[in-house]
């Protein structure tokens, strides 16, 4: 008998929370670790802190997210257009494809300090980095989408003597949308992470700053609350893309590999 998915998830989450509680108890009461608070806090104290500080935490999160979103949108648009170009022109594909693969190897987050050094402006850095992080997964996945259009469908359009423009508008682009969103789902949490990293490089506000300051300022509770907030931001960004996908791609399609249909 299959248990409902919600029930299963609830059971697991409760289990994890229980273990967490247990672990925190062990550290403070049993082992009496002096550093217990910084290693593993009690779940309830974290919740309390979250409740008490949600306004400041929320504001910080918003600052981090807002610029990242602009970069994300920019990267997504440019990435998709590049994929269209590579799909239309063999030469463009041959030139750009290896770099597309290689770029996924470059430790992009490692690039962040360097980009910040170059650009100097906090906001501009966030946008540039988020765009860069989004650009390549979106382009690679969208290209994969264009290439996966079944031959039969292409032949159908060919038999109608459809112009290239019509073929793209009516066949290629709708077909590629599920793959486009797969790319976005990979890029979204990464953009959030990158934005938080930029915070830490010298911003005055943002969740990354909260993380850093609370850590070095000894405010353990706020630190953990910030960690949870940033995790929530990552999950939320993924869910937002998921929602957008439900809206834009309402037809039933083949399930794609969750963690990224890359350059295969």
């Amino acid at each position, binding site marked *: 008998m299959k248990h409902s998915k919600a029930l299963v998830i609830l059971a697991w989450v409760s289990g994890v929370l229980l273990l967490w509680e247990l672990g925190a108890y062990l550290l403070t009461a049993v082992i009496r670790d002096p550093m217990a608070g910084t290693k593993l806090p009690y779940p309830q104290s974290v919740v309390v802190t979250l409740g008490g500080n949600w306004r400041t935490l929320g504001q910080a999160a918003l600052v981090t997210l807002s610029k990242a979103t602009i970069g994300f949108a920019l990267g997504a648009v440019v990435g998709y257009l590049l994929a269209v170009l590579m799909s239309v022109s063999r030469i463009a594909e041959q030139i750009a494809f290896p770099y597309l693969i290689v770029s996924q190897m470059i430790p992009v987050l490692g690039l962040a300090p360097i980009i910040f050094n170059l650009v100097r402006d906090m906001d501009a850095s966030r946008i540039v980095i988020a765009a860069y992080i989004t650009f390549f997964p979106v382009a690679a996945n969208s290209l994969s989408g264009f290439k996966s259009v079944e031959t039969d469908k292409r032949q159908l359009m*060919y*038999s109608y*003597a459809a*112009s290239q423009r019509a073929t793209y508008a*009516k066949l290629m682009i709708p077909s590629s949308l599920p793959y486009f969103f797969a790319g976005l789902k990979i890029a979204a949490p990464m953009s959030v992470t990158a934005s938080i990293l930029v915070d830490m490089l010298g911003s005055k506000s943002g969740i990354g700053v909260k993380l850093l300051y609370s850590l070095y300022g000894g405010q353990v509770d706020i630190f953990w609350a910030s960690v949870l907030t940033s995790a929530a931001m990552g999950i939320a960004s993924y869910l937002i893309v998921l929602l957008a996908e439900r809206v834009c791609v309402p037809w*039933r399609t083949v399930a794609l590999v969750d963690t990224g249909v890359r350059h295969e």
Partner: protein
Amino acid sequence: MNMPTVEAMSGIESRPIIDAMSFIDHRAKAKNLINIDHISMIYKNSAKKEVVALKDVSLDIKEGEFVSLLGPSGCGKTTLLRIIADLLDPSAGSVRIAGQSPRENRLRQKYGMVFQSPVLFEWRTVRKNVCLPLEIMNVPREERERRVDSQLDMVGLSAFANSYPFQLSGGMQQRVGIARALAIKPDLLLMDEPFSALDEFTREKLNEDLLDIWHKTHKTVVFVTHNISEAVFLSDRVFVLSPHPGRLSSVIDIDLPRPRTQDTRESPEFFALVSKIRKSFEGVYRLS
């Protein structure tokens, strides 16, 4: 099925007589629509060996005829159909359709094609799928709506106009494919084993429906199949092809009376023709 026009209604009542006459008529004075002249198709397969898909095939198809290209796999029947559709370039020989090349024919959107799988776009409703070629051809909206409605009516799927393909059975999806092919009012209908993926019962029903549509629209139909009964049931003439190399081995006239029904399938003449065709394979058919 719905019969909206007076013309069609009167057709049903007096069909046997009219059809017998038009049968004699169209045989007598129909001119050739398609001339296939010494077509050969040779290509290299993945093991770099040369495969002769078609060797020196010549045949003619008359206007308004329903012909089948029949044979086992590897005999080149699909290849030949694709050459007519300008989806393949032959290695040698020429094809003329109403005096024009396949390419010109395709560019002027003169044929409708139905594939083995329905090839519907998952993101479009049934109605929008049938509409697709009309959009590409820039047919004005009102005309588009009219044609889509009438085609869906003709294949009996008006009730499903706003459904998505995944909500329909295989047979229904294929009917949408047929409606779509007819929407552009082509002179020629090319069908590549359109019913081979369906079960026997659905297939026989769709055979009858197809003949129904053909009677109403008087198109020329080139139908590819590997099923001997299907070919005999549907066609005026059957072109039998054999493999290795792909070539035309015989042309069988099917002089069964029209309209053809379930009774036709039971008739001794039907069995005789099926038998005749089957025997013509026995000497020729080899496993590769």
